[in-house]
């Protein structure tokens, strides 16, 4: 996943998570009938409200867990990038990392340029 994709996913998931708790809180109003509902509901009506309420609260709870899971996937993806794509810090010295060999290379290039210039008609 690219970093922009990770950021977009983070934004979306955060928004979903913060809204989900609000929805769950609002649902509790349906499930408990609200404080100002004084008259008793019919048993079938109550059952319908109750079953759809339970279903909705299940959906939101699922959304909440799924959201956290998505964020954990993001941290895992970042962790994998750090561990698997890291550049080694203590690499074996190549010939271009020593001043001496670099100087030799510089001399060689200089000499070759001079030879080329001398060979030109």
């Amino acid at each position: 996943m690219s970093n922009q994709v990770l950021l977009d996913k983070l934004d979306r998931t955060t928004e979903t998570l913060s809204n989900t708790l609000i929805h769950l809180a609002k649902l509790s109003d349906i499930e408990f009938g609200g404080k100002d509902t004084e008259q008793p509901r019919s048993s079938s009506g109550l059952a319908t409200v109750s079953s759809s309420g339970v279903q909705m609260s299940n959906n939101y709870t699922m959304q909440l867990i799924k959201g956290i899971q998505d964020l954990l996937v993001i941290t895992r993806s970042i962790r994998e990038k750090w561990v698997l794509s890291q550049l080694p810090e203590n690499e074996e010295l190549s010939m271009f990392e020593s001043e001496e060999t670099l100087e030799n290379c510089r001399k060689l290039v200089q000499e070759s340029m001079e030879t080329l210039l001398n060979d030109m008609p």
Partner: protein
Amino acid sequence: MSQPEYIRERLDSLAKIDKQLVDVLHRASLTVSSLIDLKKRNEESKPQFQQNAQEFYDDLESATVQLRKEIKLLDENVGTRLLPIQTHKKATGQDNVKLEEQFKLLTKYLGKDQQS
């Protein structure tokens, strides 16, 4: 496997974020249960509900801010500490090998016994 210090710091920070995320879920569960208490006409649960809801949002904010920082750090380190593209680790010395080969050829053509 031992990691360089900077990478170890990043991994620790990510582990902390994971813990915070789990706390967010736990806090959500506490918020809902205190809300249920509150709906059962138990007014004593109100401050508890408020505190749990507050902590849910605080934890969520803190975790997401940290996560955003980690993504930014990942972006900043591409090319210095991280490979800019997904390649096999063994392929990273490819350029140097080729360059060494070219300089050996140059030495040969110039007819010098150059030490590498």
